């Protein structure tokens, strides 16, 4: 079974075309249904009392005054919730040595970060619950805090979790080749310290959950803004002791997730526990301050790194010492060791070199927990790698593009294994770089830069090659014992009028999953996309799947959809062949009609076939298979991950008197394999770039030495906004994966992976004539002026 993807005029050629998004009309008409829009009979609201201390013993909780507030129904402490809900421990067996203490939905006797829930107030309205929460009197005994990353393991630093022995959550060292010898014999060695700031994902729709427990049926229904409904079904079932078959997670419209909504949050599980105790629907919607203090944070890393190069620019070695602090607990069930682990796996990714050493050290501290956020670890690894490569090029007096061309894996080198032991099936670094050079007119831009420099205008050009991990297999989480599905399924059925319904285990977070699925199913069956209704996000009706994470929706969920659609097509043709008294191989389905495969001549509309199968089955031969519904599941098995690649470029201007960076233009050429919907891919790349630019220039969560979060609002935590964004040019090279018929890899994180490094290199390219360099993100005007040495304190 093959599809002639190369022929745009093939019948039903929807894969590879921009088709309208089926859910766009609903959303722009304000007909979306987010969790907060759902109102159930007898529904109540919960607000949480959150620790104002980064570390404190909870000596007592006095709720009397709160209970007298009009509308307040009940107050819960950690102990109350612990009676119906078991704690969790977020470790994975394949991350050897990773440790984390049991975590409860509401702190039981000790709060470990500012914002950790310490009590819950349930009331008839959110406002009344907040009034009550304000009156809860918690008696705290403040404890010593751990807030500095680099001294977390020092002997004099207090141990955050006594039972853990020390503040080390995880450490992994990877070594390949002979690093010491390589550095000793190197022509040049460049070392740098990098820093990436603590971020959070800032979803437009905050975290939201509404849980209903029906004791008569023993059924728990959670309406949840989540990326992974089946994972949440499993988690709620396990910790609230309900069979999985009786836990239904419904995930309707979701207003962005970026990884933020793929984790288990204590307040959300507490909401479910409260629903079970009170036997009535309970809603929790985080407000913006809660989002900043309790959504997972990410990317808080400090890195010492060095690179060894030969005179001709060839890289001989890289040595990376990465540190990250993950807050007070490893986050369930994906754990908080993955990001550091990714840095080890991804540094040096595009390059063919031999000697590699990387270590990540993951420590506990009294801050909001960190976990996976869009492009997990990639922006860090790419910044380190590309920063080093650029500095090496500068040392050698070599053009940054040239040094990359001399080191990138050749386009015909695949399959190949990297020094970090990542296996690449097929990448296109050189083709992508060539395309980028063309798109941006590199030489022209360099000439313009030189000309303007004479006039005192400081412009910079930055290049960043990258790899992106997509389509994960169970090697990511499953082998470590997490009940996180890497496989995904799709059920496709034909209704009597010939229209098609597809039920998929991947989810729609606003990224266009349903559009992508509709066109795959349309092509797979042979109907137009508007005839396909896609249903996602309901564990009671869709096949079991993993949902949205690690850029897997198109590659895994899309392939399951294609396989099930093709299977349905076969079932339809079996019936059609019987009805038309011909051979099945002589028939095809095109645009909702059974046609003669050779001539394209219509033989019967699907509607007629539906009528016969469903209402006049007596006229068909006895025993003829007549299932107009097919389910297929897909999992990758040849490679642990389908890597993609690409290269980005940034052109910008630095005002050396104010330190302000103006982004002038941005380019990305990427290779996500088969492109299913060009517009959706381009918008994923653009949106991803914007998030990466946010990290490069704006986003930084600040804490003081006591562990108090200092910027918990949209006025103080600066997300990238339209006015500062440059024009973006997106180009593609297509190297489909051979693991699937569809050939699609992921595209969701490439933009975020490469953008910060491109900007960093561009800024440093602009500053280089002045002898200055920045490597600490975000590159604020002040940091740039400090690098230039113009500020005196």
């Amino acid at each position, binding site marked *: 079974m093959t599809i002639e993807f190369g022929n745009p005029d093939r019948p039903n050629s929807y894969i590879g075309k921009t088709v309208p998004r089926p859910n766009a009309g609903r959303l722009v008409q304000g007909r979306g249904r987010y969790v907060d829009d759902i109102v159930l009979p007898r529904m109540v609201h919960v607000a949480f009392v959150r620790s104002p201390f980064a570390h404190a013993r909870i000596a007592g909780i006095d709720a009397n005054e709160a209970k007298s507030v009009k509308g307040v129904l009940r107050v819960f402490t950690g102990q109350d919730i612990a009676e119906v809900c078991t704690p969790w421990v977020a470790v994975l067996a394949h991350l050897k040595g990773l440790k984390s203490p049991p975590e409860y939905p509401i702190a039981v006797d000790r709060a470990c970060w500012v914002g950790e829930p310490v009590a819950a107030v349930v009331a008839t309205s959110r*406002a009344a619950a907040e009034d009550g929460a*304000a009156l809860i009197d918690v008696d705290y005994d403040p404890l010593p805090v751990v807030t500095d990353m680099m001294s977390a393991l020092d002997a004099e630093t207090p141990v955050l979790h006594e039972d853990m022995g020390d503040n080390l959550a995880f450490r992994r060292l990877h070594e390949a080749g002979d690093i010491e010898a390589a550095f000793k014999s190197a022509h040049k060695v460049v070392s740098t310290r990098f820093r990436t700031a603590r971020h959070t994902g800032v979803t437009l729709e905050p975290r939201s959950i509404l849980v209903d427990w029906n004791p008569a049926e023993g059924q728990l229904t959670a309406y949840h803004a989540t990326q992974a409904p089946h994972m949440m079904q499993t988690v709620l079932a396990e910790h609230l002791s309900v069979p999985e078959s009786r836990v239904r997670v419904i995930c309707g419209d979701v207003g962005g997730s970026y990884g933020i909504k793929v984790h288990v949050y204590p307040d959300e599980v507490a909401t479910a526990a409260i629903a079970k105790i009170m036997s009535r629907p309970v809603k929790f919607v985080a407000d913006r301050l809660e989002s900043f203090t309790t959504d997972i944070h990410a990317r808080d890393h400090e890195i010492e790194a060095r690179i060894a190069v030969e005179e001709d620019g060839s890289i001989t070695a890289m040595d990376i010492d990465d540190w990250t602090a993950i807050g007070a607990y490893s986050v369930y069930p994906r754990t908080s060791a993955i990001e550091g682990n990714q840095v080890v796996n991804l540094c040096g990714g595009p390059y063919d070199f031999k000697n590699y050493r990387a270590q990540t050290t993951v420590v506990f501290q009294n801050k909001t927990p960190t976990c996976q956020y869009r492009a997990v670890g990639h922006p860090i690894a790419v910044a380190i790698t590309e920063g080093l490569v650029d500095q090496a090029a500068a040392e050698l007096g070599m053009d940054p593009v040239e040094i990359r061309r001399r080191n990138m894996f050749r386009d015909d080198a695949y399959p190949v294994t990297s020094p970090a032991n990542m296996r690449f099936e097929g990448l296109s670094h050189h083709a992508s770089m060539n395309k980028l050079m063309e798109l941006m007119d590199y030489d022209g831009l360099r000439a313009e830069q030189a000309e303007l420099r004479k006039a005192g205008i400081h412009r910079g050009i930055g290049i960043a090659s990258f790899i992106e991990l997509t389509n994960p297999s169970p090697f990511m989480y499953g082998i470590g014992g997490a009940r996180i599905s890497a496989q995904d399924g799709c059920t496709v059925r034909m209704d009597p009028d010939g229209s098609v319904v597809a039920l998929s285990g991947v989810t729609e977070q606003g990224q266009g999953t349903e559009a992508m699925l509709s066109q795959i199913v349309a092509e797979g069956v042979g109907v137009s996309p508007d005839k396909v209704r896609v249903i996602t996000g309901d564990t009671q009706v869709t096949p079991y799947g993993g949902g949205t994470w690690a850029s897997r929706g198109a590659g895994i969920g899309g392939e399951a959809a294609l396989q099930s659609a093709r299977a349905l097509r076969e079932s339809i043709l079996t019936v059609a062949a019987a009805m038309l008294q011909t051979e099945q191989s002589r028939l095809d389905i095109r645009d909702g009609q059974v046609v003669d495969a050779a001539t394209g001549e219509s033989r019967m509309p699907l509607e007629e076939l539906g009528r016969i199968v469903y209402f006049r089955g007596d006229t068909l031969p006895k025993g003829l298979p007549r299932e107009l519904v097919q389910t297929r599941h897909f999992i990758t098995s040849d490679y642990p991950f389908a890597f993609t690649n690409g290269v980005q470029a940034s052109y910008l201007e630095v005002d050396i008197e*104010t330190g302000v960076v103006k982004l002038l233009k941005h380019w990305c050429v990427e290779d996500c394999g088969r492109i299913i919907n060009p517009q959706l891919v381009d918008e994923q790349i653009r949106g991803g770039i914007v998030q990466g630019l946010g990290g490069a220039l704006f986003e930084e969560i600040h804490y003081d030495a006591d562990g108090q979060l200092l910027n918990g*609002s949209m*006025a103080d935590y*600066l997300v990238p*906004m339209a006015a500062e964004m440059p024009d973006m040019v997106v180009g593609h090279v297509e190297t489909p994966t051979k693991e699937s018929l569809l050939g699609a890899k992921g595209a969701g994180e490439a933009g975020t992976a490469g953008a910060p490094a491109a900007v960093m290199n561009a800024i440093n390219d602009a500053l280089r004539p002045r002898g200055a360099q920045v490597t600490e993100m975000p590159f604020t005007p*002040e940091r740039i002026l400090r690098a230039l040495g113009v*500020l*005196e304190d």
Partner: protein
Amino acid sequence: MKASVGGYARASDLRHALELLSGSGGLGRVLAGGQSLIAAMNMRLSAGDLLVDISRVSDLSGVSDTGERLLIGALTRHVEIAGNPLIREHAPLLSRAVQYIAHAAIRNRGTIGGALAHADPAAEFPACILALGATLHIEGLHGRRDVAAEDFFQDIFETSIGEGEILTGISVPKAEAGEAHLIEEVARRSGDYALAGLCLVKRAAGHRVALFSVGPKPLLARTAMTALDRGDVEGAAKALHDELDPPSDTQASGAYRRHLAQVLLRRAVARIEGATA
């Protein structure tokens, strides 16, 4: 968070508003454009207020020419300040400031009186009226009074508006022929409050320099003004360096803000010279 409001009443005219305020037992709070107040209430930074909504008091809005001066009603919205022909002609500093204030939706609602009464040290209008030497008109149940801009701003978010009083408008002197108005600022993103900002007015009588986001209130840089009058730009920059002691926060340190003030001053002067050269 959900706001916790003590009550709400819409005033039909100024007198009604003043009566509502005086009857509120000290809990009354004027609601104008709501662009600062509602945000504060939604964070429960302000709770229990009895809101007195003056947004429909029509005679507090609009701009009129009183001969020597322009009278600008307190309820005149940012977007109107930007577009009003009288202001563009006679007090261009104000209309130019608007491009730096927040975003279109906020400028459509926020009022100049609200911005001045709110007295955010990083806001543009307070520094503008200081540079222009405006007069503020304040009214209570027991009468009106006029306050010079230099006496109006007291501390961070504090002005000389007394309890039960309402700012009804401001008067600004009309620009003389040849007068130059400039506003310069640096913000992290367009629409953000400035990291530091500067207004420069050059009149026959001398220069006026007002800075914002460099201290607890907008500041008239008198030594720098005298230096500029002498034609000593570097002396003026040095005066800023010596006199300013800006605060540090998560966006920028005091040292950075002080440096920026000097850069902005040099740029503003250069732009005036460029324009007249």
